[in-house]
């Protein structure tokens, strides 16, 4: 049998995971990562296509076959360097990118068997480099061409900041919270995205020369216009989608009803799972219902289990097929014992005499005609109301952009959904010198699409400043 054919038949190497019965009692990472042997074996399956299809699916244009080849040959640090040519945050992407819809979807091996596990290999290379000590590329400090303010230190902001720093710009990254990383810190739980890994990636961006200022809420302490007054030549807004959506049904302000943001901020950013060692508490009941079907809902449900809830339900108004969460996360949640209540929608929340939620009145749904998103619209079934007893509810039905910057910046056009209007290819907004990207433009999406937007914006900020400054060298101005 020719080698190529043999490879096609080989299944991909599974990544070791903590057993469900163990992991529901801890917040440690569920997926354990490949060993050296596993990584090399998986890399050997790669056909090294002369015209690689996988690259088409990568929003940041990583030379995928090249980094896999380095792993296959045992050059793990070279593999990581290859990744970092395009992606400053590979340890993060290797963990949370939906590779099944991106690079791996195009892998030719996937037509017959399992595609190459590109994400797992990316994670392996990044983790290997971190344990060996990260190498920082040399800075172009000989030609600083201007000062750029980046607002928001999530995936979009970190990427834009890193790319601009590598190009030699003087970059200040403003973060409103007390820790940099955005959704990677406050939103995605420790068991899926360990915070020390996020901080290692943030440190890498710092080492590139980016000045990170936490506790700076732009729109409050400085407006966008004031940033220009303080000597910045361009601004990138990557403030994400941090405004929680509520259902707007009766009883929603009862005690015990959290937005997913509040629930996850308490658990992840404030480390309430280590209360009372950490001062921030979280109150979790015995029966928890999480409303929604995305990754945030899965994260909330799995966190609730780890905090000691006896029963955790996911209440979703469509069916399993329409779940927007990654299949892998749904599978993890199922393995851990999360109960799914599909085709079910809350109508109102019922409280006890103390104002604490004690039940949800739900209605059964059926799938009707296709809606604008191409999914079948859920419609309530008359008379199918029933009551679910719960004592904690997490509302995870989506986030929209925080409106603060939009509200305080003249000349910045927004949509009716509160997102900032930009030219897609460049990230240019309607305000001169101001660029935006990530969830604040697209609405809640993925880490990697935000990084792609951060990259594109960095490129166009570079072009804008080269043009504006005539490509000349100039000294950084003071202030800021």
């Amino acid at each position, binding site marked *: 049998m020719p080698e190529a054919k043999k490879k096609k038949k080989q299944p991909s190497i599974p990544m070791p995971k903590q057993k469900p019965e163990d992991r529901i009692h801890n917040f440690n990472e569920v997926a354990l990562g490949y060993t050296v042997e596993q990584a090399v074996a998986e890399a050997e399956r790669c056909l090294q296509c002369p015209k690689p299809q996988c690259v088409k699916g990568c929003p940041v244009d990583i030379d995928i076959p090249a980094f896999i080849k380095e792993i296959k040959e045992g050059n793990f640090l070279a593999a990581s360097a290859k990744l970092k040519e395009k992606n400053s945050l590979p340890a993060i992407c290797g963990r949370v990118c939906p590779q099944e819809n991106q690079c791996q979807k195009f892998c030719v091996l996937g037509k017959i068997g399992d595609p190459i596990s590109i994400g797992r290999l990316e994670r392996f290379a990044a983790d290997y480099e971190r344990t060996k000590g990260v190498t920082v590329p040399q800075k172009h400090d000989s030609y600083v061409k201007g000062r750029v303010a980046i607002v928001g230190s999530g995936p979009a902001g970190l990427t834009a900041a890193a790319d601009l720093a590598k190009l030699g710009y003087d970059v200040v990254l403003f973060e*409103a*919270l*007390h820790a940099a990383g955005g959704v990677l810190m*406050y939103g995605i739980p420790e068991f899926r995205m360990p915070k020390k890994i996020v901080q290692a990636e943030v440190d890498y961006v710092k080492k590139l020369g980016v000045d990170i200022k*936490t*506790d*700076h*809420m732009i729109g*409050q*302490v*400085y407006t966008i216009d004031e940033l220009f007054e303080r000597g910045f030549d361009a601004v990138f807004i990557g403030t994400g989608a*941090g*405004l*929680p959506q*509520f259902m*707007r049904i009766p009883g*929603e*302000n*009862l*005690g*015990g009803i*959290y*937005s997913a*943001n*509040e629930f996850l*901020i*308490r658990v992840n950013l*404030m*480390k309430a799972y280590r*209360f*009372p*060692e*950490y*001062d*921030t*508490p979280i*109150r979790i009941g015995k029966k928890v219902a999480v409303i929604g079907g995305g990754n945030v809902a899965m994260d909330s449900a799995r966190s609730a289990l780890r905090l000691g809830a006896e029963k955790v339900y996911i209440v979703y108004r469509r069916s399993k097929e329409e779940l927007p969460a990654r299949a892998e996360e749904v599978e993890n949640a199922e393995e851990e014992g999360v109960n799914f209540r599909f085709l079910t929608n809350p109508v109102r929340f019922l409280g006890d005499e*103390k*104002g*604490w939620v004690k039940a949800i009145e739900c209605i059964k749904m059926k799938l009707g005609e296709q809606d604008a998103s191409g999914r079948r619209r859920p419609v309530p079934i008359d008379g199918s109301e029933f009551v679910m007893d719960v004592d904690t509810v997490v509302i995870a039905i989506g986030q929209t952009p*925080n*409106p*603060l910057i939009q509200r305080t910046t003249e000349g910045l056009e927004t949509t009716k959904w509160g997102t900032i209007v930009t030219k897609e290819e460049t990230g240019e907004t309607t305000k001169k010198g101001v660029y935006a990207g990530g969830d604040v433009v697209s609405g809640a999406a993925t880490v990697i699409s935000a990084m792609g937007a951060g990259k594109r914006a960095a490129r166009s900020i570079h072009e804008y400043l080269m043009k504006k400054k005539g490509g000349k060298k100039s000294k950084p101005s003071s202030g800021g």
Partner: protein
Amino acid sequence: MHEILKKLELAPKIKLFEVSAPEIAMKAKAGQFVILRVDEKGERIPLTLVDCDQKKGTITLIFLEVGVSTTKLGALEVGDKILNVLGPLGNPSEIENYGTVAMVCGGVGTAAAYPIAKALKNAGNKVISIVGARTEELLVLENEMKDVSDELYVSTDDGSKGHKGYVSDVLKMLIEKGYKFDLAYAIGPSLMMRATANVTKSYSLKTIVSLNPIMVDGMGMCGACRVTVGGETKFACVDGPEFDAALVDFNELIQRQCVYLSQEKEAMCACEKSGENKHA
């Protein structure tokens, strides 16, 4: 890191800190607040800005020790540093010349009311202040309030100083005596703000309250501070903290302040019920 430059004990468990925070001092206006975190394991604590000194680059904070976090904060000394201070947050008070304004303040709420009274006075208003507390030794900023008020009245629940009873009773008394107010501010524990709102409603006196629900991020992300105002859900952190008292659902607010609770916060609510401010 933000150094503590001055520390005073105003009353048992009520402390004043002057903290280095030049960027916040340059920008803050009356009615806004900050969120601070004492150390790496600390909670995010919202505190009203009492004063700012742009030249010195300092902000003044006053707080009541009600739980672990505020007690930890209160244990810091001059020269110690606070890890995180974020601000200014929230919307500034709308300061203009309304005419005659009643400032009704309860407990540590007086500290939050002081910069607003000062700004209103500077804008040309006649400011008539009523400051109250459970008992005389818990009265704070009485002299400072006197300095920015045309008239000042004091009440204590136990009658140890001034009128015996509640600040809302004093306001009612003044209105019945013939005082004409164009606007009232009520700042203090939720029960006190509710009582004041009930008084002013019957005289159709427009009243602004500054709410202090539980907050986590303070920037519109978590929704812990949601309150129902005029039938709509608002976030006190970014839509407030000031709202029209007549539209606020105080019962829900009070329930939400009390219901979350680990024992520590139950203790905080107990404090509030007994007439103290729980602004942290």
